[in-house]
């Protein structure tokens, strides 16, 4: 009985845990942003606003589901789902503790990158299907930006891969037992910075949020969405950010390593991931939005060559030291 149930139970638990985390991450961000702006943030619903995300979810579910007349209906309706699936699938290969994960593939990080690249299909479907100029423009911008920042993102993420000598995420985590890669002299810090910058860009967050620049494009590719579909898109976006935060914590911050008994590992991992998330949020609420050409120039003229050189330098270091690993 248990033999075939276990592979179902673990994903079920993980999926629900992730959904919970993602829901409350919205609250975390709102509180954090409020503190940065000397406000209090959500406070009404529940003690210290703790029930706010649930209230939001209920509100969105109750709303009327409006479909524009001119919309490309099948595409419009499918888009949120196609968008959400990759965003949830990226958690499949992340090990939350030694042995605790859905599938610890030997190409784990490649799977993560490949699946997160699929997200753009859903995004474009949403922009196209809405049959709205703002939505389409926003989707075009998103494609531009995601293509541009995928490469630096991959290169930055490959630095820990080279250092650990494995594509398997659990092995990368284990390889940091001695030294977290973020503390690896020079290379580690540079790669981490590049990772954070390209994460912010790949998530389309400020200062790279031109695709939903409210002053020009109203709300970007989701302008025509409402109700449950809007909630799903929102959920997917936050899931992606959280997934990238987990990846950052795993690649650079030693994953589940931390003081205390072993069962505290997942907790430590969560704390680190939230740290990365807050870092991204901090950037989001601190900088002004920059122009499209600036965004593209930053990627192609600075970030891409820099990460490429960094990657080569890492390879040289690894070859010089003879063996991968710290």
């Amino acid at each position, binding site marked *: 009985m248990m033999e075939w149930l276990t592979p179902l139970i673990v994903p079920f638990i993980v999926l629900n845990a992730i959904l919970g985390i993602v829901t409350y991450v919205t609250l975390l961000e709102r509180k954090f942003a409020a503190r940065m702006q000397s406000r209090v943030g959500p406070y009404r619903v529940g003690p210290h606003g703790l029930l706010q995300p649930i209230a939001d979810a209920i509100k969105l579910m109750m709303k009327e589901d409006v479909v524009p007349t001119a919309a490309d209906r099948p595409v419009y309706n499918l888009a949120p789902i196609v968008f959400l699936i990759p965003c949830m699938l990226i958690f499949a290969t992340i090990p939350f503790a030694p042995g605790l994960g859905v599938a610890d593939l030997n190409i784990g990080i490649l799977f993560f990158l490949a699946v997160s690249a699929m997200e753009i299909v859903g995004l474009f479907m949403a922009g196209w299907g809405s049959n709205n100029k703002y939505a389409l423009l926003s989707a075009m911008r998103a494609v531009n930006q995601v293509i541009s920042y995928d490469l630096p993102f991959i290169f930055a993420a490959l630095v820990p891969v080279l250092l650990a000598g494995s594509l398997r995420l659990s092995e990368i985590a284990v390889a940091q037992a001695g030294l977290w890669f973020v503390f690896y002299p020079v290379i580690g810090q540079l790669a981490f910075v590049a990772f954070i910058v390209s994460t912010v860009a790949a998530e389309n967050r400020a200062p790279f949020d031109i695709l939903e620049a409210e002053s020009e494009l109203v709300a970007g590719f989701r302008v025509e969405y409402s109700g449950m579909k809007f909630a799903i898109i929102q959920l997917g976006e936050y899931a992606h950010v959280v997934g990238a935060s987990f990846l950052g914590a795993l690649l650079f911050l030693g994953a589940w390593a931390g003081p205390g008994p072993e069962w505290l590992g997942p907790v430590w991992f969560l704390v680190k991931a939230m740290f990365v998330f807050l870092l991204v949020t901090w950037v989001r609420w601190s900088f002004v939005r920059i122009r499209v050409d600036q965004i593209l120039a930053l990627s192609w*003229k600075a970030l891409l*060559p820099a990460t*490429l*050189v960094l990657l080569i330098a890492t390879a040289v270091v690894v070859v010089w030291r003879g063996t991968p690993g710290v």
Partner: protein
Amino acid sequence: MAGDGTLALAALLLHAVAFLVLAVAAPLRRLGRPAGYVSILCAAGSLAAAVLSWRAHAGEAISRLVWTWLPTEGQTLATVGVLADADSTLMLTLVALVALLVQVYSLGYLSDESAPALGRYYAYQSLFAFSMMGLVLAPNFVQLFICWELVGLCSYLLIGFWYQRPAAARAALKAFWITKAGDVGFLIGIVLLWRHTGTFDLAEMRVLAGNGAIPLAGLAVITFCIYLGAVGKSAQFPLHIWLPDAMEGPTPVSALIHAATMVTAGVYLLHRTDWLFALTPDVLAIVVWIGAFTALLSAVLACVQTDIKRVLAYSTVSQLSYMMAAIGAGFSAAGFFHLLTHGIFKALLFLGAGAVIHAAHSNDLTDMGRLARRMPQTAIVFTVGALSLAGLPLFAGFLSKEEILGAVRAGGFTAPFAMLILVAFLTAFYMFRVVFLAFFAEPVALHAGAPVAAGVGAHASHVADAGHHASHAAAGVAAHEPHEPPASMLLPLWVLALLSVAIGVYFTFVHPEPEFTSPAWLMPVAVGSAVAGILLAWATYQRRAIDAASLAAAFGPIYRSALARFWIDDVFERAYLLAILGFSRVIGWIDRYLVDGVLNMLSAWTVTAADDLRTMQSGRAQDYVYGIAVGLLVLLLWVQFG
């Protein structure tokens, strides 16, 4: 730590790092001077590493540091790495030193350049230094050839640095193609040698040669082919014609590439493989004769040039031939020794000439004169360089030149020896002709009664570096005053001058153990001919006791032929034209009457047929795909049921 070649590798890789940084980080490169600082910083580190490496390998210590490359199934075709021993690290130090000084010097010399051009210049410089060091340290022929071509490429890029000027672009192409002609021979030689010995590796090959395991049959052809590469790179007759034209590049480039390092690569190659050439004495005899002949030819040519850089260029050809002659005589150490000293003082002379051009805004000797008053420091260091080149005692060229003369004589080549003595005389003459005309004598142009400004204007249009400084000249020719160059240019000059003197003094008192015995009269004769040359130059151009024109008239035919560069460039052009045009005429006739005749007939038929068939060609790619698919269908049917 230093014994394992790591330091040599570091010296090599520092330049590569500088180049990569400048090549990849475009914003940094476009800043200009900061790019130069990056490059200079790496060059300084490289020099330190090279010197340490040299100290570690001064004795018999040899270290190899190689990685396999091009692994084919079962065996390794080639390796890359460094082979550090006494010779290569010494050469490495020379390259590192001159490269550093030239880069510092260029900061001042090229200060008028736009920032992106300056950054590009430093990127090229770093690439060149890296390639040259890779050549020097090459453990096998493959790496050596690759670096050999890389330095050729850098030479091309740097000669054509002012690529907007047609003359520079042409000179760059000429240098590239003529050296390539030699390189073809070199490449053939390497491949033949590989078939002959089964290895590219220098050390392995040397062991084979030591055991007598290399079959002698056919080896002469191979060594001659390899020598052809050296002929091209080191500007031996008849491929010497590119080097004077290469002076279209910036003067620091001439100092680094076309005097001290790249052109000596041919000499270095022969020195490096002297054990191989020792097996083929016939080829060595060719080397001596061509060397002596080129030395004499170019020395005569140097006497009649009015462009200061061209005098130095022909002088470089002449001195390279000196080295070649010594190597051909079988005493390659003497040639290598002269290579090192020549590298120092020729770089000094070129940089000094650069300072003069910088000040006078002209390359032409007739535009100069009495510059010693305006720029005494330059005059001193230039004279030190000239004395070194003339080979007077206490200066760098003295012992090395005498060693070469002794070597050629000990090798039993009497006629080349006599030619080289004559060259020693001519060398002193033309060098001091430059010294007197530029620094001490009254300006010639004033003598002739022509205004200086007109001379500057007339030459600035067609002379290499002068054009570069023409903006200065145009700003105010009349008010222009020659001045000492900035410190960034003076410092390298003084370093090189002091080194020249230091080497000269050191070797005047500490004679290295010679491999051969020279007769006692050799040194007086050598020094005497040099002094005679200096005196003749003094009498002609300083005192004007002898009229230069009548001196020229006395050597009428030679003078006129020298002015025409002995028609060698013309011969190349004619031969090229004749061969290509003649061949083309024959081919043209065949083409017009035989080939075309048949074809016209066929095409007449074809045209009518095509008119009927053209409807098949719709121009739509899909129709063709359709055709392919139908063809595939038919093919499958035929295969399965036919």
